[in-house]
């Protein structure tokens, strides 16, 4: 990595966007990068949308606030509505097609629409939709190695939850595959 990269991840509360961002930041740290993870926190305890900003950089990070991120991961429609315009030109927009309900309008960004929730349900738990999306993001950006994400997961999860690691790994892989093979510019 030779220059700073910023991602905003957004979705419903409960979709795991916060931990997806933390895993990415943690993995970046493990690979020796400078990282920041910044949540936006609101009044609602449940429901509503949540988002976080992750920055990875080879150098000291100044502002943790980013007006125009290099990438956005939008896990549902309100997130897509809110952040679509913010992605930098030539940036990346990863969309959870299962819950977005519409296609990407911008044409000056690279858009990747994947049925993350559907895939997650398919492999057994809709809670890992975040990992599917993260896999897709990593496949395209190569921000960090998937191994580092798995290592982060191992550190983040308490030992009695380590049984969940294979499921998460699976989801990550499915996301990567989708990104590799899937329709990078969906037709509609």
């Amino acid at each position, binding site marked *: 990595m030779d220059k700073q990269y910023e991602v905003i991840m957004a979705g419903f509360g409960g979709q795991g966007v916060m931990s997806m961002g933390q895993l990415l930041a943690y993995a970046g740290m493990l690979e020796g990068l400078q990282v920041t993870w910044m949540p936006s926190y609101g*009044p*609602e*305890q*449940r*429901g*509503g949308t949540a988002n976080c900003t992750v920055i990875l950089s080879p150098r000291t990070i100044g502002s943790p606030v980013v007006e125009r991120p290099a990438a956005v991961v939008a896990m549902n429609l309100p997130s897509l509505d809110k952040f679509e315009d913010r992605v930098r030109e030539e940036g990346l927009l990863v969309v959870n097609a299962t819950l977005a309900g519409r296609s990407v309008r911008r044409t000056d960004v690279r858009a990747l629409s994947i049925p993350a929730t559907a895939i997650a349900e398919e492999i057994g738990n809709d809670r890992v939709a975040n990992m599917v999306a993260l896999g897709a993001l990593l496949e395209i950006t190569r921000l960090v190695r998937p191994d580092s994400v798995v290592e982060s997961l191992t550190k983040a999860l308490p030992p009695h939850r380590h049984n969940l690691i294979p499921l998460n790994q699976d989801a990550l892989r499915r996301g990567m595959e989708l990104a590799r093979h899937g329709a990078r510019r969906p037709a509609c």
Partner: protein
Amino acid sequence: MRVAFERPAGLTDCPTHYCPGCTHGIAHRLIAEVITELGVADRTIGVAPVGCSVLAYDYFDYDMIQASHGRAPAVATGVKRALPDRTVFAYQGDGDLASIGMAEIIHAAARGENITVIFINNAIYGMTGGQMAPTTLLGQLTTTSPAGREAPREGYPLRVAELLEQVRGVAYLARYPLTKPPEIGRARNAIRKAFQTQLAGKGFSLVELLSTCPTGWGMTPREALRWVEEVMVPYYPPGEFRDGPEDPGGGPSRKRVG
């Protein structure tokens, strides 16, 4: 067909920010129904606390004041003293009323302040993310009693109604859980009596409502209802604690009415 049940006047159309299954919403409805019934909507002033119900000022269709954390009884006192012919109520959570606002509630009660307080006891700090409240039960896990509340470390849960029962100046005092339609009916009656106490100028009235916080408790809304019934109700017995001002000559009242 006629409408048998609909959203009462007295509530705005604004959807609440409460979590799914949070019974704050039920409490709001009961208050609105009673105020409509008593015909005092146009001269009611409500005081919202700091807590999950902070936005109550958006939900009630009355003149509303947002008070600082714990001080709703003092704010309500200021309003009532300025406008003695208006109906004034404060809506407070257990952190708000029983922790930071303990002095204010006891003294409003002791002054016999002619206001009505609706007290939502959900055994936790909902708004700030599930920290321990004074009413958190022994053994209960919260984000600041992560090993479960234990008396030697975190002290004992406070029973607000029992405490206020000792305070002369209290004219109406009751506690009910918001767990099932019949209980909710009793709660509604108590709320009506409380407001009637105020309208009759008899002094301080308070209704404690045992309420759920599925989010703070880490339960589904249905589990939360059962937890109120099985764990809260035994420690916080429902009933009417006082109905009518105490005999001015007498000592503290000892009888439980309901």
